[in-house]
């Protein structure tokens, strides 16, 4: 009995240490990023955030992160624009329409998309998908609507649009499977009430199911955004990787750069300490953005679960 008691205590302490390590890792990461970016922040101040030039040549150094912040936001925005409607469509189909025999295999396949390593998406994007985009979307659009600023540039296939679409595909499993859970948690009594007043299936889905699940779906979207913002490998392979003002994403058909692809491309080759500090500073922005997004998602999802608990009774 005594021995068991001691074993419990040891386990308790062990578990506490392991749990605490998660917090410690986050704090250490944040500390490293903050201290590492002090030199570049001291040298350029706000200019590091707002500037557009990026020149690591010694003596002429200037670092501005704005193009890459914009690159991340724009590609992630495209990913949401394309990926979210598809994901919600998949979720609605799986819960509300799919025959039972299809439901489980399709849900499994969708979740399997999340298991594909991102470098595989990158390879596919680089060797296959890029040419589809180039030949079937970009060249025709460029020929007819090339005078519009957002369609300007040479349609080359390695650009903001391709990166956004690849990201869209990558966020689908996250957004679709959480939306599926949220929609599945909508009480059937609500659907029945809506049918009983003469709503069609489409109206039940649109006005009742999606409205009831909206905060949960919003949470799913935010988690998808988190994934899109942090994604590195696949984006690096298809976005074209420009530097400086050329990386400002002004057109869908122009190459750009995201925060994560900038770090992935440049960090290992950086030599001067100020340049290293600049990459770390960009990493700090990226971490802050990811933290904000994840906290927002957490708040939204817990709120919807609470509402759900109250609404069922």
């Amino acid at each position, binding site marked *: 009995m005594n021995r068991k008691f001691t074993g419990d205590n040891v386990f308790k302490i062990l578990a506490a240490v392991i749990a605490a390590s998660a917090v410690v890792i986050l704090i250490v990461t944040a500390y490293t990023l903050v201290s590492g970016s002090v030199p570049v922040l001291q040298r350029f101040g706000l200019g590091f955030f707002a500037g557009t030039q990026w020149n690591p040549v010694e003596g002429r150094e200037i670092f501005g992160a704005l193009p890459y912040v914009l690159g991340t936001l724009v590609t992630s925005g495209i990913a949401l624009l394309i990926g979210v409607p598809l994901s919600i469509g998949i979720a609605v189909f799986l819960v509300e329409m799919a025959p*039972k025999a299809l439901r489980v295999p399709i849900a499994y396949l969708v979740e399997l998309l999340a298991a594909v390593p991102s470098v595989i998406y990158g390879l596919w994007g680089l060797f296959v998908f890029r040419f589809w985009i180039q030949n079937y979307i970009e060249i025709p659009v460029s020929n007819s609507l090339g005078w519009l600023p957002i369609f300007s540039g040479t349609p080359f296939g390695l650009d903001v649009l391709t990166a956004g679409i690849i990201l869209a595909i990558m966020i689908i499993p996250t957004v679709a499977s959480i939306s599926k859970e949220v929609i599945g948690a909508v*009480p059937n*009594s*609500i*659907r*029945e*009430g*809506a*049918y*009983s*007043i*003469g*709503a*069609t299936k489409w*109206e039940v889905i649109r*006005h*009742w199911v999606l*409205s*009831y699940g*909206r905060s949960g779906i919003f949470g799913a979207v935010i988690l998808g955004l988190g994934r899109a913002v942090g994604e590195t490998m696949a984006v690096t392979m298809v976005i074209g990787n420009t530097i400086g003002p050329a990386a400002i994403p002004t057109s869908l058909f122009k190459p750009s750069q995201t925060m994560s692809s900038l770090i992935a491309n440049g960090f290992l080759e950086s030599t001067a300490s100020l340049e290293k500090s600049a990459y770390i500073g960009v990493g700090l922005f990226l971490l802050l953005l990811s933290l904000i997004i994840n906290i927002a998602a957490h708040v939204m999802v817990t709120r919807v679960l609470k*509402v759900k608990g*109250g*609404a069922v009774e």
Partner: protein
Amino acid sequence: MNSKENTEKSYTEQMRPDVKMQSIGLNAWFGQKQALKDINLTVKANAVTAIIGPSGCGKSTFIRTLNRMHELVPTAKMSGQVLLDGKDIYADEVDPVQIRRRVGMVFQKPNPFPTMSIYDNVAAGLKLTGAKKGKNLDEVVKRSLEQATLWEEVKDDLKKPGTSISGGQQQRLCIARAIALQPEVILMDEPCSALDPIATAKIEELIVNLKNDYTVVIVTHSMQQAARVSDFTAFMYLGQLVEFGETSGVFENPKNELTEKYITGKFG
């Protein structure tokens, strides 16, 4: 009652004007399990018809076939006819959405829409058909809430969520929601089973008043409730209609031994 061999047309001719709905040779299944067996029942207009019977006897399934809610269950099947004003609601050209607007429903557990205000809960059905916000809609909402005897209690809180009121009030809100569409028939599936005695008494009083304007079919677990509110009573057992007649007759003079056993509390 009519025999099954007759054609639909002759049923129509035979139907008396005071018959609002009629089921003919109605069978229903969930997967392989047969829930209703050859139910032939008439529902009189402007009367309350109660359906009683032990749990699992098919009474809920039966009223769910009367407004085509039954078919929403994925494994559900049915055969036979259900006539509304002499016309089969399961005929090919009939849109179930239209039937559900003519035959409203109140459920066992109050299910007001939690994302909508009290006002919108009542207005939701009308908004589906394009009713615009304004005086007319306000009028209908008010009248429906008045008919459901809820207006006085919620008139200052119309913007609050439909789930913010008590269970009994929620159930009357659901009745108002059904009434707002001006249905011809209102189906109630054990509407008081989740309510306390005071709320139950209010709903029962309301049901009796509703028959002036509507035809009411109520499924109930409580024989006392059936005796208090209904004009006609049907007793169902194991998916079959055992006995049907005027409520006083069924309770005082049951013809079938099973009915007698059930109403005297020997089983159920």
